[in-house]
């Protein structure tokens, strides 16, 4: 089935490049370890054979559209990626009409293992509720109709701990943070010209790498994605020191669902929950 995807993607890519619909096709190609896929930017129909699709195609390619400066571009999107696409369209960072979306009904991708083929599905895929791209110009594969209900066991486990335990837990986690900002670079929702963490005036986060500053960074990173995170979980995948960022994202995902009955990136004109309101809603604040 994956080889089938590969073939379809190559054909579509060739067609799009040849008839000039797009200038570039963003897809996946096999990486240097000969196993794991990496992003591929195909400008020449002759190169389309590089394109592949298999269960190592983890990257959220939508992020790269931000750099295409409005050039007509085709992009391969999985279910979660498509939510990111909706998000960026809603936030006016992309124009739908110069993007050709090759949607792939995603069977789930496996964990990253250098030089070795892993067969362990990524956490996000185990919990995935959006296998079928929400937005596409061509859809590869059979749409998945039955999606599982939300599962926040991991969050619940965390909440079972005492306040002190949680504090200690995160203390320990963020102490490892080297502030490389890979999480931010990989995140489709992070596209600020001048990220708050690198602003010197106001200095929201001290430049020094210290637990407090690290905690500030990781907290605000998560909060800036509250009601926006599409659960592609690239941030956690790319973290070199394995900070469980998904816990923060998913906690907020759950709260947003409970409080505002909202799932980010489900449509291209959705209004994020923090920039709208209901007059008579009860949120347990000031009541």
């Amino acid at each position: 089935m994956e080889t089938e995807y590969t073939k379809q993607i190559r054909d579509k890519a060739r067609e799009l490049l040849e008839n000039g619909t797009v200038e570039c096709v963003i897809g996946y190609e096999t990486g240097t370890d000969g196993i794991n896929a990496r992003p591929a930017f195909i400008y020449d129909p002759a190169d389309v054979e590089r394109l592949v699709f298999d269960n190592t195609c983890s990257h959220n390619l939508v992020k790269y559209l931000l750099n295409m400066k409005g050039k007509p571009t085709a992009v391969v999107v999985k279910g979660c990626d498509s939510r990111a696409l909706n998000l960026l369209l809603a936030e006016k960072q992309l124009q739908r009409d110069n993007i050709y979306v090759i949607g792939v009904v995603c069977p789930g991708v496996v964990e990253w293992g250098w030089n070795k083929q892993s067969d362990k599905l990524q956490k996000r895929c185990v919990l995935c509720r959006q296998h079928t791209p929400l937005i596409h110009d061509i859809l590869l594969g059979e749409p998945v109709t039955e999606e599982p209900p939300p599962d926040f066991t991991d969050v619940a486990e965390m909440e079972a701990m005492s306040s002190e335990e949680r504090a200690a837990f995160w203390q320990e986690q963020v102490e490892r943070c080297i502030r490389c900002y890979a999480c931010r670079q990989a995140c489709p929702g992070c596209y600020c010209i001048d990220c708050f963490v690198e602003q010197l005036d106001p200095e929201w986060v001290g430049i020094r790498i210290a637990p407090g500053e690290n905690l500030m960074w990781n907290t605000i990173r998560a909060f800036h994605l509250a009601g926006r995170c599409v659960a592609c979980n690239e941030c956690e995948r790319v973290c070199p020191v394995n900070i469980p960022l998904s816990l923060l994202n998913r906690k907020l995902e759950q709260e947003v669902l409970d409080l505002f009955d909202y799932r980010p990136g489900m449509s291209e004109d959705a209004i994020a929950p923090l920039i709208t309101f209901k007059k008579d809603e009860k949120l347990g604040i000031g009541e």
Partner: protein
Amino acid sequence: MSADNGPRIIGFLCNWCSYAGADMAGTSRISYPSNIRIIRVPCSGRVDPMIIVKCFQEGADAVLVAGCHPGDCHYNEGNYYSRRHFALLRELLDFMGIDKERFRVEWVSASEGKRFSQIVSRFTEDMKKMGSREAV
């Protein structure tokens, strides 16, 4: 502010209702513990969640945000937004080990001086019980 005289509480008060409410507490001489330090903002909706997190990161024991009652916002809608922001933020902070109780959001109108002092008194009491935090 010295930690020796109990919890360090930072209060963000909207200029139109709650700050006026605090003034009312003053003009009516309704006393409350002196731990709170008040920062005046135009609207509770001006209070950026980032600065709340900053307060805790830097070692504040507790933070109070007070704004107009829903429907009474001087800017019509400000407190509706802050209500959403802080509902989420409280959860996130709690999740990260900063107890919900340390971050309170209250609606205090310009005429509720008594209520303001009651809120601050209760808050200070609770925080004394909880004990102080360390900056991280």
